[in-house]
């Protein structure tokens, strides 16, 4: 996980950044610090008047860099839906999960557009809806990825079962 304040790539579970020493922001509903929690709390602090605009812009920029890295590997966020990239043999088990992840990316696109309204046009009213879209992105992304992992585990179990059957038949 990256500290969005300084860009240091630190370890999970630490309450503070080991490079800049600042706390890795976390607040409900987040349980542990992550990129979304850092961004959301920074938005809250800015709106409360305890975080300067330049620091919030820096944090937004660092989060956008993470999105850019993701896009380098997977293409533009809404360029091609993930569900349409599934091989035919994977559709039955993974379509529901990828639909959930595609929904998450749609929320992320909306959030980035709203954050751009703030960073480029100074529209502070875009920040609260951006925060909501970021949370929607996080919920849907976690849900979709959890479904993918669940299906992958089931697939492993099916393979083990096939292996056991073969052994019994001997």
């Amino acid at each position, binding site marked *: *996980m*990256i500290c969005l304040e300084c860009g240091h790539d630190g370890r*999970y*579970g630490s309450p503070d950044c080991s490079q800049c020493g600042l706390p890795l922001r976390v607040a*409900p*509903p*987040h*349980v*542990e*610090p*992550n*990129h*979304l*929690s*850092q961004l959301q709390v920074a938005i809250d602090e800015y709106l409360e008047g305890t975080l300067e605009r330049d620091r919030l812009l820096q944090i937004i920029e660092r989060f956008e860099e*993470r*999105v850019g*890295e*993701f896009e380098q*590997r*997977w*293409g533009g966020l809404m360029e091609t839906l*993930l569900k349409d*990239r*599934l*091989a035919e043999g*994977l559709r039955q088990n*993974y379509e*529901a999960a*990828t639909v959930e*992840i595609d929904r998450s990316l749609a929320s992320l696109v909306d959030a980035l557009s709203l954050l751009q309204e703030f960073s480029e046009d100074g529209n502070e009213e875009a920040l609260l809806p951006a925060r909501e879209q970021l949370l929607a992105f*996080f*919920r849907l*992304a*976690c*849900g979709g*990825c*959890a*479904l*993918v*992992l*669940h*299906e*992958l585990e089931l*697939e492993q179990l099916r393979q083990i079962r096939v292996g056991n059957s073969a052994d019994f038949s001997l």
Partner: protein
Amino acid sequence: MELAGSHDLRALVQDFCQLTGVNPNHTQWLQSEAEAGRLEDSKDMQNLVSSLLLRMIGMEVSLP
């Protein structure tokens, strides 16, 4: 990138973890999600989390 096999799906989840900054240890992650009530609006998610939590409880009970 196409999703041609399980390795691509694992790579996708891994990249989402990097994007969101979430710990890729998915069991802890789901437990945290369940505790925070973030997955309560999805029936599938409720079933999934319940199943994982029951499995974790089962593991604890089986410890000597």
